[in-house]
């Protein structure tokens, strides 16, 4: 296991970077209408159909998703990353790069979705009932499309 110090040094920024780079796209649809949302394990944001570049952001799932990504990254680092990378000078360089890219990605993403944001506590696509068709896809990069 890596230390708490390394958790802050590597796991958090890598989790943020992963959240930006790979997510799940959920499409809920009836015959003539659909909605697309992004986030894993829970959909936490998606373009709103109210106006141009308006986003709906679900606060609860967003927090859970980010924590989930960080924990997954922490587990992967603990099991799979060679100690050579995490130790001494190499580790500092890796940590700086991870923080720059991870935090930078998250900031850019939040800027992009802040043009016309609307916040909900939990559920994004409440209109689509359990009978609606739902498909799930891998999505690379920030989910910003309809």
């Amino acid at each position: 296991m890596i230390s708490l110090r390394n958790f802050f040094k590597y796991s958090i920024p890598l989790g943020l970077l992963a959240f930006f780079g790979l997510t799940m796209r959920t499409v809920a649809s009836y015959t003539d209408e659909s909605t697309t949302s992004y986030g894993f394990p829970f959909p936490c944001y998606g373009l709103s159909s109210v106006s141009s570049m308006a986003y709906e952001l679900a606060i609860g799932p967003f927090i859970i998703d980010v924590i989930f990504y960080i924990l997954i990254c922490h587990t992967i680092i603990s099991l799979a990353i060679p100690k050579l990378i995490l130790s001494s000078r190499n580790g500092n360089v890796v940590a700086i790069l991870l923080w720059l890219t991870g935090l930078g990605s998250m900031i850019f993403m939040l800027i992009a979705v802040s043009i016309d944001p609307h916040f909900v506590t939990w559920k994004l696509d409440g209109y689509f009932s359990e009978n609606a068709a739902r498909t799930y896809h891998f999505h690379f990069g920030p989910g910003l499309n309809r």
Partner: protein
Amino acid sequence: MSAFEHRLSGGTHIIAGVSGVQMTMLVRNRKEYFTDFIEREAKAKGLKVVINGSFIDLSFASSVAVRARSAALDASESTPVGQIIQDGKLLAGTSSTGKFNFSQDTCGLEKFSASLGNPPLSACSAVGGIAPIIIDGLSYGAQNAYKVGVPKGAPLTGDVDAKFKPFLTQKSNAMFATLLARGGTVGKTAIGYSNSKQTLFILSQADGVAGFDANGIRTILIGNNVSNAVFLDCSDSSTLYYNGKFLVRPGTDKNEFLTVAVGFK
């Protein structure tokens, strides 16, 4: 000669146009603010009323640019959602078959219609990719509504089977439901046409101003015997230019990248 009459009701501007109203689609193709574009086009084309039109999509980089700096976005970076037709030609926009359109099918003939899917390519002027309020007399809302006697199992939202359709009095729509959930203070832009009154109604409400919710807008339109009506781009995209001045202005960011407007004279 067309005539327009303006009144303000509960925070919502309502403009009624009669006697040969002509609709014109405007698509920005320069690097300029949306309001400057509207002002210029209104003067050049003698338009009495101009409202915002289609939804616009941006790339990730353009979204960040809009937030990070204060300058108009090059028009080529904005992608209208839904087709924009003028004089039988596709001016801009992408196909949007699951959404609705509003069109004036024949130039010079004051008759407006709305339907599901892309607008007719032969239309005099039309805008697609928008949300329904009333289509051929059928109201839209957050849920399906039925007459008394409907068989069990009729869905509250989404697709309605043939056996339930004779009982349907209101069809659900996701865009309408989302707008309704935002309440009365979210900006709104709507247009509708009454066949019986031969009157075009243009409704616009500024974002953040207390006004009618989506159901309230629908009630106003039904009260005026409107047979076809749609919501355009809402929230702080809402823009209304009337008689040489702006009564509703878009938000600062939207003013940088909105591209499509609908003019009337």
